């Protein structure tokens, strides 16, 4: 399915290297059926995800952004996801203030063994974004 055909939407996923990327891999290896809208960007840790990555993605073409890291207390770097949790929660609360539906952004925790959970997260989030439809934050005003 191509994006141009209008059926697939653009969803960006920031996945931590140690847990969630592994989880996505597990889901793939196990051949769990998943929607294909998600574009995965692997990051070392969810703590690497600058909230502005999410903002930039939403402003320049993404219809939804998903961030996933190790479960709290399971971070490969001990506490990266604890920082991430605070930052991402802050962002989630800021987005509606500037007119962006906070449902377009989701953050969650998926471990390397949770292939099935990953399948569920991707499917549910993709369904949600499809319900919301394409996002057109972008409005060019050349001056």
């Amino acid at each position, binding site marked *: 399915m191509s994006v141009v055909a209008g059926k697939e939407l653009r969803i960006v996923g920031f996945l931590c290297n140690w847990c969630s990327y592994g989880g996505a891999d597990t889901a793939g290896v196990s051949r769990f059926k998943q929607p294909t809208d998600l574009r995965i960007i692997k990051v070392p840790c969810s703590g690497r995800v600058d*909230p*502005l990555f999410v*903002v*930039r993605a939403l*402003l*320049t073409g993404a219809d939804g952004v998903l961030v996933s890291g190790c479960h*709290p*207390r399971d971070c490969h770097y001990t*506490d990266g996801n*604890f*920082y991430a*949790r*605070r*930052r991402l*929660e*802050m*962002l*989630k*609360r*800021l987005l*509606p*203030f*500037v*007119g*962006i*539906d906070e449902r377009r952004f*989701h*953050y*969650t*925790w998926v471990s390397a063994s949770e292939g099935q959970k990953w399948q*569920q*997260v991707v499917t*549910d*989030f993709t369904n*949600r974004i499809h319900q919301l439809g394409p996002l057109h*934050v*972008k*409005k*060019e*005003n*050349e*001056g």
Partner: protein
Amino acid sequence: MSTEKVKEAIAKILPDVETVICYQQGFDGLHTTPLFIKIPEEINGLIWNPLCVQNLTSYLPSIKKKVGIVVKGCDSRTIVQYLQEGLIDREKIVIIGVPCTGVVSVKKVLREIGHQPVAGVAFDDNGNIVVKTSKGDRTLAIADVCPDKCATCQYPTPIVYDYLAGDPIKSDKPKESVHEDIRQFDEKTLEEKKAYWEKELEKCIRCYACRNACPMCICQDSCIAETREPHWISQKLSLTEKFMFHMIHAVHLAGRCVECGECERVCPMDIPVAKLKKKINTEMKELFNYEPGVDPDGKPPMYTFNVDEVKIKEHKL
């Protein structure tokens, strides 16, 4: 009036410091501008009145020598925040605190007088500012033309100081009032809020006055709004890029903004940019019961974490 007390305090500390940062009359009656006092003779140039709005503390991190500074209650929050973040050396700063009952927003005065040229300004004893223009005098209650921050001010007396020029004042403003404007704005629909910001941010000329005047924007010359490596935003004048810049400013101030309002005060295009930062502060208060610039021993919430976050619930899909 406090003016004499401020002058006295400056005279006292001047021998110990390289310079004292305070205010002098600006290019017209409505504007003040910073004064850097180095020798006693210069103290006479000082003025102290409700037009002394600028948050002078933003000069502190870049000054290496020992300095004195005159601060209002709101300005002192910046110093507290600097101390929390280790950006200044308390030993090298002598703080002259001045209790303050509210300052004047030049923008609001100009709106009231129809943006006429100002011939002169005076203050009466009843809390009014009298503005002289070619069309006559206009008397305005300071309370009606104060910046929004004054209307809900919780800290009329500086939080930290070495000398206090005047008697301490207690706030008579209810604590809940501080974030009321944010709550009200948030009640608008997503579409309304989006339209609001699009209309406001479209005016941005990317002069970065808001950033350079911001005391907590400490990256300054390395700001990612200008670098090509990393290449966050382009030089195109699209709404997207303007919006992105203001999100950068707001997010980098998360849990750090002391709500001095400088960003909004200095905006030449009158964009209400402080609102974005105040919204985050509202959330910081709600999530972590944290208020920037209040407790010198505090820690900005984004610099720390709790293993179990009481207020952050996992989001369901």
